[in-house]
């Protein structure tokens, strides 16, 4: 499991390659913070390849979203499967994040 960083114009796209859980959340956090420090302000996390996220993974998304907003930016999400959507609804995090059904729609929304 790892995280691939790509740039689409001024948008930093992060592909989560596997699950986002307690064992790898710090890696995601560091990669996004590095991009934020380099000047990135628009972030999209794509969960096409993700089956589940635990509370630590949700927590790191909340923390990153807050840090990015403090710098005048935004973090958006795309391609949550139905199980992941349920997880965000259960925890009310669907009200905190802008979530797009596809990467293209998410990119257009910035």
């Amino acid at each position, binding site marked *: 499991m790892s995280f691939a960083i790509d740039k689409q114009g001024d948008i930093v796209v992060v592909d989560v390659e*596997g699950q986002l*859980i307690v064992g790898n959340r710090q890696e995601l956090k560091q990669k996004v913070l590095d991009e934020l420090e380099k000047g990135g302000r628009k972030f999209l996390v794509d969960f096409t390849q993700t*089956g589940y996220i*635990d509370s630590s993974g*949700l927590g790191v998304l909340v923390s990153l979203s807050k840090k990015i907003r403090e710098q005048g930016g935004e973090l958006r999400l795309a391609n949550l499967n139905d*199980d992941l959507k349920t*997880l965000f609804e259960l*925890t*009310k995090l669907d009200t905190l994040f802008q979530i797009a059904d596809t990467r293209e729609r998410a990119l257009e929304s910035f």
Partner: protein
Amino acid sequence: MSIEVPNDVRYIESVIGLIQYECRLLDFPSRYCALNLPVALSEALSNAILRGNDDDPEKAVNVSLSATTQSIVIEVRDEGPGFDLEASTHDPADPANLEREDGRGVFLMRALMDRVEQFDDDGNVVRLTIGRP
């Protein structure tokens, strides 16, 4: 099935993979195998490793699985003196907690499993139970 897991969060995904295999073998609903059990077990294991065993690499966590056609029961046992499972829980429905980084673990376990029990039995044990709908 009973396995001894090194006290390291990097092993969590592999343990979950074994449980998912059993879940699918018993033909439980796909959501149970893809979401409910993985997330609940990840929470129980990270609690056991980081809180129960205090992130001590010399310790281990035992995971046992009792599966029938009607239910799946998982017990996660650490070597610690026990900890209050509810201590760091916050209600995610409370808007004041929406932007908290922590406090969703026990909530998710309870939301995704039929029963979550904690007891002491030569170590601290968390038992997760889910039945076939």
